[in-house]
């Protein structure tokens, strides 16, 4: 009887470990950053989103607009979420465009815009 109980408990323990493997597939090892102000940023969003956020903060922008690749579903949503409370506004004077070799949208630059900052992945322009 005792052996049977030990066997059941051991089996349950093994099953708990095995079922926990499901969590480790998506574990990000950010526990020690969990209460830091910028904790998890690099894991949570694309680098261009962080770059846009930095420019929005550095230039104290009140709003911004996007074009080209940055307007595609996921990049757009991540930018909007991450830069909040600064909002996306289609009539803003400040425009972000992707400048990477894979997604170079500089050709979409309207006339009358001047470069404010050239980043590694995105450029910020001020337009009239």
């Amino acid at each position, binding site marked *: 009887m005792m052996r049977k109980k030990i066997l059941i408990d051991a089996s349950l323990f093994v099953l*708990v470990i095995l079922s926990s493997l499901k969590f480790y597939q998506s574990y990000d090892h950010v*526990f020690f950053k969990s209460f830091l102000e910028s904790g998890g940023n690099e*894991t949570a969003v694309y680098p261009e989103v962080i770059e846009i956020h930095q420019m929005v903060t550095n230039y104290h922008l009140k709003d911004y607009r996007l074009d080209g690749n940055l307007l595609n579903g996921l990049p757009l949503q991540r930018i909007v979420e991450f830069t909040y409370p600064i909002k996306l506004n289609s009539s803003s004077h400040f425009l972000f465009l992707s400048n990477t070799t894979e997604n170079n949208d500089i050709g979409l630059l309207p006339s009358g815009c001047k470069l404010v900052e050239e980043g590694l992945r995105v450029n910020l322009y001020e337009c009239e």
Partner: protein
Amino acid sequence: MNVNNSFVIKHALAFNAFFVLNYLAWLIGFQSIAPVIFTGLLIYFCYFAVDSFKFKHALPLLVILYLGLLSLGTVATSWDARSIWLFHAKRIFIDNSIFAQLDDYAIWSHNDYPVIAPLLSASFAKLIGFWNEIFPKASNVFFILPPLLIFYGHINNNRLFTLMVIGIFYIIAKLLLNGYMDGILALYALSTLIIAKYYFYDKQNVGLLFILQSIVLVNIKIEGFFIFAVIIASIFLTKPHITYANLKRYIICLVPIIFWALWKFIVHAHGVVNYIYGGLATNNLISLLDHVKSRFQPDSLLMIFEHTLLFKYYLLLALPLLFYRKIVNVQLDQIIKASLLFFALYWLFLFTVYVLTPHDLYWHLKGSATRTTLPLQLISLWIPILILKNYLSHKG
């Protein structure tokens, strides 16, 4: 409850009360006390931890501590978590208002969705003083605690409860931690069904717990209200003797309905529209009938059946049949009957949703069916465990 003291009821009730209190504080404009409420929740959790060891009921606590540590080591990267729940929480925290999302900015984020869970994340962020990509999500783990306590109290057997937890880890898996609400909703669906059993069948003094549990359920996600309706229908239809006195017990169901209707009214007053309802509202009756007719074509029906009925965890329901000879004398009690009826009615609800969806059927099913069927998958685990529990007590 089968646990021989008020441990389960007291703590499940208290945690639910914190969630509802936090909701009410934000709703009536007392958001400045939200950090106090969250601090109260943390202090109460410490008291619960001491109580758990004192009364040797430590298993639910250990599960929650484990999930809490995992949640603090995981970043929200999935779509619903980031674009809906945590974005709403961030907006509530930054704008310092429960109505932040109702300006309908970022329309893709389903601004009509209820906010009880985002509000707890926002309160947590208010307590800490800033927002980041990790810790606000961890507050969701608190919502797992009342259902776990209710399962623990009903099963009343450490080994069977461990088996239930293992099943939950397999079925809900990362949806417990990644900021989605579907796992929490499934746990609340089943635990509310259990509490409803104690309240309506056994006439136990759990009315307040049933109300609080139901308020949280209807405010987690939109489906919450329909799940609540299905629970009440399942209980009502499996109850053998309906008397006037019994019917009076159903009056308290109005409380969660009022909470649900209040949020609906607020959303409507701000002109925010649900994306499924919005799609249907543009149809007139004839085009709606045409739409439904097109969904009753074999291809569409097969697609719905395939995505809602073919889950490996449903096979768990067949497990008791393997041991038919051993369990033949085990009584199918009312909670098992109600759970089976819940399974059927909730599936019917899902079927109706997918028939009516204005979106591309395959896209909608592919993106949601695994999550919307979670309550059914969980029930498929729950019923064999109940039968096993009944068998063990029958065996003595």
